[in-house]
Every structure is written in structure tokens, then in C-alpha cells.
């Protein structure tokens, strides 16, 4: 048995399989670049499914994210979203949501205003776009439609009573009920993933529709936890809505939920079909940036692999996905030991108040880049002309607090792919790429 690594040669290697990594792979394929993607499941699995651009600025909920981008440019010129032209952001966002829709995970077309989507807490979250399966919740909440929120015995962390207790005072038509999920009535713990997959079976949908119809009592809208299928949820949504005769919407659930699994599985199937060399659920162990090319080394369960690329796009996320590592004496980037912009010491990482509207300084830590999304050394020089970065790994943003994670991921992925393509030059980039 030989231990020789299996080798792949591509123009662009994307490291990371979160939103930024997948968006980058998608945009690169659309540009016609031969592309490889490597990444381990990280934070994407925990997403609510909302694609936000900029939801909160200075502790205030943002209504018009596009004008807020202008404000962001003035107040936080180092913010990744402040450094990309708004029309590029808009273009990238549209391309991305359109691509998802073509995969059967329809997203609302990004508009001029943020949508206000109900959360499982019974609060409302500002987001630019959300899955079509969740869209009717925004309208129902706005129009205070006669709505029944259904929860399920055994599905912990999702209480329809909680939604009604919190949203009800402003939404008098909101009611709740609890049902048993068909085929899962034995009282055990329910996972949204299992329920969602069961709803891909027509017979299960029919039974659930029957149970909901029996308690509908005139409601024109029905809210469910996010369980409407994993694969092509639009189909499940349409079918169940038809069977119910009422408008149906999902409310996100706490992890482990389905929104991230939907995206992960859709990308894992669709992108290789478009030519992507995908090494899923693995981490790059070594990355060498050479004069002629970049080399990625990794192992999958079968053995060693090498990917040779003309350019590398780093979209490895933050601490949760392993893109950044926090040691007691500082934050480092583990793959290349890139310089990490960070607060001076651990005591300055976090504020005392957890939910302070000012946010924690550590959330602004990350990789500093030039306008071509190339990581920079502390002296301002480019680390390597073949290296680009995208997503929440970048310094100067606070995606959780500002509700801008998807915006940062999609816009910087687009811009970084654009810059990488420019570096690779016309034609191919796998032999002698243009100097940067």
C-alpha cells in the first residue's frame, strides 16, 4: 500500500466551508476558475438561515441597510463591508441568493429594507434576506395576521407559548398549540433534522397537515419550527402549504437546527457537479506559499492529499471554526501564523457586560487585508501575492452584534475571488500566474 499523496491541480484553492468559503467556491466556478475547496464543518451548521447584511449599528436596529453601509463607511472605515463598493455588495448578494434559489433553497430577493423576522425567543430580528420558507412570518408579523404557531412535544428549546407571550401583546391574532409529530409519538427527544427529513416523505406531510388542520380554527397563517425538509425545502413548503390551505412559515430553531445543514448539503452536492474539487469535512494541515504555486497538504480518512493552486483564498472563520486560536497570551492564525490584529491583552478582549451594545473588542480581531483582500503584515506589506482572505476571519467587524455575518461573508468572498482572478490573469493561472 503506497503512502503517496493524491494530487489535484487547480487555479484557486478555497480553504473553509462556511458561508464565505462556499460563496467563494460558487463565485469562482461562475467565473470559470478551476477551483478546489477544503473545509471542516464549522459555524455554518449553527446558522439560523437568515442572510443579514447589516442589522444593527451602534446598538440601533437598522431599517435600511444600504444607507447604513454609508454610515458604516464613515464610522468604521476599516470594516470589511465599508471597503467594498455598495453596488458590488448588492451584486454579490443577489448572485448568491439566486444561486441558492436554484438549488431549491429559495431566498427572498434582497430589497431596500431589512425584514423583521420572528425568532424562537419571541423577539424580531432584522435581516436582508431569508429563506422563502420563513418569509411569510415577516408578513404575518407585520400585518398581525390570524396566526397559529405550532410546537411539538419533545422538541426542546422551541416554545410556541414563549412566542405568543412575547409577540402576542403586539400581535393579537397570534395563538399557539402543541402537537405530536407524526411517526415520532413515543415521547422521546425530537431533533429538527429528523423531523425535517421525515417531512420529505409525502405521507408524513399529509399526516402533519391533517393534525394542523384540525386545530387551525380560522388561522390564515401557520408558524412552525424550521423543519420543512432539508433537501429542496421549497418543495416541502409548497406541498405542506397546499395541503393545509393556509400560509406557512418557519421560525428558526436553536442548534442543532436545519438551516445550516440545508446549505451544507446543498453546496456539497451542487458545487462538485459544477466542477468543484471538494474535499469535505477535512482540515488543511499545512499551507505553503511558493514562488510558482501554493501547496495545500491535508489528510482525509483514506490518506494524504495535496492540492496545488495558483491562488489561495482563506475563509477559515473564527474561533468556532478554527480559523483563529486564542491562547492565553494572544490570538493567532494557526495555518500560516498570519499577523492577527487584536486588542493588547486578554483583559481587553471582552467587556464586563456580556450583551453590551458596544460589543467585545475581541470580536474585531482578525486578519487585516488590503483592498484586494490580501492579508497584510504589520508593516502594511502584502503577506504573499497568492494569498487572499474572506469572511468573518477579517478584522474590523463584529458580525454577531452587527448582524452582518452573511454580508461580510458574501461580499468579501466575491471581492476576494475577483482579486484572485485578477491575480491569476486571463486564461489559466496554474502555471505561471501574474505577479500580484
Amino acid at each position, binding site marked *: 500500500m503506497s503512502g503517496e499523496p493524491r494530487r489535484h491541480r487547480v487555479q484557486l484553492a478555497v480553504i473553509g466551508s462556511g458561508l464565505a468559503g462556499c460563496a467563494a467556491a460558487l463565485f469562482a466556478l461562475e467565473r470559470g476558475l478551476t477551483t478546489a475547496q477544503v473545509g471542516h464543518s464549522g*459555524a455554518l451548521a*449553527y446558522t*439560523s438561515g437568515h442572510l443579514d447584511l447589516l442589522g*444593527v449599528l451602534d*446598538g*440601533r*436596529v437598522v*431599517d*435600511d441597510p444600504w444607507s447604513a453601509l454609508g454610515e458604516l463607511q464613515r464610522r468604521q472605515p476599516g470594516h470589511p463591508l465599508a471597503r467594498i463598493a455598495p453596488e458590488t455588495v448588492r451584486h454579490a448578494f443577489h448572485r448568491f441568493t439566486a444561486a441558492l434559489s436554484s438549488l431549491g433553497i429559495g431566498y427572498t430577493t434582497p430589497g431596500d429594507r431589512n425584514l*423583521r423576522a420572528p*425568532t*424562537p*425567543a*419571541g*423577539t*424580531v*430580528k432584522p435581516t436582508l434576506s431569508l429563506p422563502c420558507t420563513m418569509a411569510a412570518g415577516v408578513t404575518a408579523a*407585520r400585518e398581525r395576521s390570524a396566526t397559529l404557531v405550532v410546537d411539538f412535544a*419533545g422538541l*426542546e*428549546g*422551541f*416554545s410556541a*407559548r*414563549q412566542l405568543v*407571550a*412575547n*409577540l402576542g*401583546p*403586539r400581535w393579537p391574532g397570534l395563538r399557539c398549540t402543541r402537537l405530536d409529530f407524526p411517526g415520532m409519538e*413515543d*415521547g*422521546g*427527544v425530537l431533533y429538527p433534522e429528523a423531523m425535517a427529513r421525515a417531512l420529505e416523505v409525502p405521507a408524513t406531510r399529509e399526516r402533519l397537515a391533517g393534525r394542523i388542520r384540525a386545530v387551525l380554527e380560522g388561522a390564515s397563517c401557520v408558524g412552525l419550527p424550521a423543519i420543512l425538509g432539508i433537501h429542496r425545502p421549497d418543495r416541502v413548503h409548497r406541498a405542506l402549504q397546499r395541503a393545509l390551505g393556509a400560509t406557512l412559515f418557519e421560525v*428558526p430553531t*436553536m*442548534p442543532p437546527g436545519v438551516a445550516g445543514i440545508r446549505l451544507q448539503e446543498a453546496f456539497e452536492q451542487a458545487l462538485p457537479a459544477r466542477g468543484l474539487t471538494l474535499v469535505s469535512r477535512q482540515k488543511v494541515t499545512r499551507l505553503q506559499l511558493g514562488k510558482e504555486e501554493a501547496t495545500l497538504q491535508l489528510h482525509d480518512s483514506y490518506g494524504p492529499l495535496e492540492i496545488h493552486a495558483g491562488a489561495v483564498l482563506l475563509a477559515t472563520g*473564527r*474561533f*468556532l471554526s478554527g480559523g483563529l*486560536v*486564542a*491562547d*492565553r497570551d494572544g490570538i493567532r492564525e494557526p495555518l500560516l501564523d498570519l499577523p492577527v490584529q487584536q486588542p493588547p491583552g*486578554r*483583559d481587553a*478582549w*471582552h467587556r*464586563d*457586560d*456580556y*450583551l*453590551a*451594545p458596544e460589543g*467585545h473588542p*475581541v*470580536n474585531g480581531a482578525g486578519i487585516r487585508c488590503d483592498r484586494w483582500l490580501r492579508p497584510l503584515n504589520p508593516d502594511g506589506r502584502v503577506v504573499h501575492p497568492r494569498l487572499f482572505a474572506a469572511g468573518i476571519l477579517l478584522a474590523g467587524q463584529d458580525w*454577531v*452584534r452587527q448582524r452582518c*455575518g452573511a454580508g461580510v461573508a458574501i461580499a468579501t468572498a466575491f471581492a476576494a475571488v475577483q482579486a484572485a482572478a485578477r491575480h491569476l490573469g486571463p486564461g489559466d493561472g496554474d502555471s505561471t500566474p501574474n505577479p500580484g
Partner: protein
Amino acid sequence: MAMAERTLETEVLIIGAGVTGSGVMRDLALRGIHCLLIDQGDIDAGASGANHGLLHSGGRYVVSDPATAAECRREGELLKRLAPHCVDDCGGLFVAFEGDDPDYAAGFGARCRDAGIPCRPLTPAQAREREPALGERLVSAWAVPDASVDPFRLTLCNLAHARALTGSGYLPHTRLEGFDLRHGAIHSVLCRDPRSGEPLRIRARQVVNATGAWAMAVARMAGCRGVRLDCVKGTLLITASRLTHGVVNRLRPPADGDILVPGGSVSLLGTTSDRVDSPDAAPPTVAEVDRNLAEAVTMVPALADARFIRAFSGVRPVLAGSGGRGFHLFDHDGDGPSNLATITGGKLTTFRLMAQRTADLVARRLGVDAPCRTADEPLPEAEAGRWTEPGYAPRRWYARGDTADPILCECEMVPASAVDAIGRQAGNGDAPPDLRAIGVRSRVGKGSCQGAFCSIRVTAHLYDRGVYRDRDGLARAREFVEHRFRGVRPVLWGAQMPQAELAEALHRGLMGLDLPDGDGNGEEG
């Protein structure tokens, strides 16, 4: 709008629901006396809950304070015998490493014998066989009968026993506002619920100030100047998993990070020791955490790479000018109300003795001649006290085999049935406990996620149960995660960092707990 003032009556009002206050209540109840116990927050919110949970053999004090050492030895033996369910009799070691003062180590055995503390010398090899986690540069070791004790369980058992004996009651969230002094005595005590603002008057024949580090301030409210305390802040750390079988003490004069105590499935490292101005403990700091660690890695090298899940701080009341860890009972004879007693100083291990001395005084003042029974009478195991033990809830859940009983806190595996039981057991006819009260009485929120997930699941459960009915439930959730964060903040590195990042994504991103109430709910523009 003024709220109507309720009035309650009792024979003895005890202020401060730490181990001492609850111990006084039980002691008096055993003499047939009805008490009320109040606390501005909840049980063991001060030094009682912010320590190692070390049931001292006394070895720690043989050099600095031989009297306290001997007291610890006697009380430790009593507690092991009378409250075994609160104690993990895991044993302990005193260990010296290269560079530690050899003279201190050399005299240790003799001093222990003088204080009556059984101790046995071990070779470094024997010590490492017993505790493989000990560092390489170990030079000498002694085995002593240290143990670990669960102060929350002690307090909950004290409360339950006192309630069973005389119907004595406990009122959390009842803050002392002032004393109504008449004729040189306390006529009644004025209180308020800091959350609802609701006032309460309590009439009592005797009043006990068992407020630990706050005792000086409380005594002054009653006009007593004689209570003088130094406030000493201590910060400790909790690891995600248990690193040693038994207690490990550094064999040298007490310093930072020199005691590691197992606490069920985790280990507790500490402590720092710093004079502070206020009994209101500031949260643990990064610097304190690092000081603990800098010292401790010599003792147990695995601490350098261990996952820490939180830090916590408490303020110990130290009698001014004493320098030691002894306690004092102030009868306020001549310096204050005739029916007030203040008990402070001391330590967890000696709480029973402190309660005994206090109850002796109070009973004498009330003309009750029943003797103290806490040195003979076993402390009954209370159902309400069991949930604080790591592993109890999941063991019980597993044995019951009821798959329809969902786990709400997955880290510590606390099922819904336990949360419901805590609700039943904690209620004194008052409102069912909220998320934080459940956390204090169980392992909810104490595991590696530090409330990231269980705050959401338990909140949803409490809405389902009707405990929460409006937006107040979210405010309680916010309060709970804020409180957890104070302890998490200084240990955020390594494996706890991704956990915290995920928590913030959940609490802000998914739940929107950071946005002001109502914002985002209405239409703008």
C-alpha cells in the same frame, strides 16, 4: 405608587442565607424555635458559595493559626460523620516541590500531630501513584484527611430540615433596608424585594446578622461599631473535568493558586487573596486567573492545557487585626440593640460551630434551655439538596429510563423532571423559581457551555410550564447569561473561546437578547 407593606412575624430573624445563617436556622429549629431567613439575593451568594468546597483537615493552618487548625480538624470529622451526603471524603495531599521552603515542609508533620491531625508522609513515588497528575519536581508529600464538601447542598439541607422541624421559612430576594429600633432593641426589620420593589416588614424577638463580609455594614445599620472586618477577595477557577482524585495543597505558606480541590466531575483551583474595600465581590479578573495558574502549573502541570469553564470570586470576612481565619460572635452588649447578634469571620469548615455559638446565645436570650444538637444529630438528606451534586440528575434520569423526560441542560444532563422538582421543592408558597434560582439549586448552567444552550431550553420550558407569562422571562434569561458571563470572561482562551463565540451567536444573533426591549418589534420610519 407605594406598595402595600406586608408584615411577617417570627421568633428569630436571620439575615444572610449562607452556610452559617442556614446553620443557625437549623440549630435553632432543632431547639424548637421558629425562624425566618432572608437574603438580598439567594443562598450562598457570598463567601459560602465562592470557595473551594474544601473540608479542611486543618493542615492548611497548622503553621499560621494552630487554633483554627484544631477547630477545622474537629469540625471536619463531625461533618464527615453527620452529613456524609454533602461530603466527598476524597483525602488530600500536601506536596512540596523543588524551590519550596524546605523548613516549612520539614516541620509540617510535627505541627499536624500537635493539632491532632492525622498525617502520613509519602515518598514522591507514592504520592504520584496516588495522584498521577502531580508535577515531576515533587520533593515531599504528606497525606491528610482533607475532603470536599458541597456548600449549596449543606445550605439546602439546613433549610429543608429547619422547615420540617418548625416551619421555619426562607425568603430570597429580600434586601435589608433598615432596622426599626425601639427602646434599645430591634422592633422590626424593614426589607424590600430588589426586583419587584415590594416592601416587607418582619417582626422578630431576636435578630441574627450572619451576613459574612457584609456583617460590618449590617451591624452599622443597627448602630453597632464594634464589628470590624477586612474584606479579602479570593478568585478561583473551575476546570471542565476532574484532574485529581483528592485534594492537593501546596506545602508552603499560603499563596495564590496553591490548592486544587475536586468537585464531583470538575476541579477547583485557587485561590488568590487580596484586600478589597467592599464586600460586594467584583467579578474575577484576568490577572487573578493568571496568578492562580502561574503558581499551580508546578503542582499539576496538566492545568497548563486544561479547559477552564469559569472563574468565580468571593469576599471572605476576616476579623480585622486577627490575621487568622477564626470567627467571632458579637453579642453587641453595650454597643447596639439588645436583641441582635452578629456572627462573622471563620470558614466553611467551621460553620456548624459558628452556628452553635450563635444559637446558644440566641436561645439563652429567648429563655430556651434546649441544648445544641447539631454535633450529634445527623443532617437529614434533603431531596432539594441533591440536584447540586454533579452526576446525580443524570444517574437518576438514566435509572428511571423515562425517555419522555427531556434533558434540558445537556452538559450536566439535567432533565425537565429535575427542573420541575426544583420548582416544587424551592417554593415557600412564593412564585416558582426562575432560571437563576434553578441554576443555584442544580447543575443547570454549570457545565462546559455555561448556560449557552440550557438558558434557551430552560426558558422555553418555563414558558411552557406557565412560570413565565410575558417578556419578563426573557429579562430573566438575559440576567442569567449576564451573570454566567462574569465568570466565563476571564477564562476565555483555548477551548472555551469557541464555546463563548457560539454562545454569543445564540444569545445575540438567534435570540436577540442584546436588543432593547421592544426595539425591532415595532415598525420604524
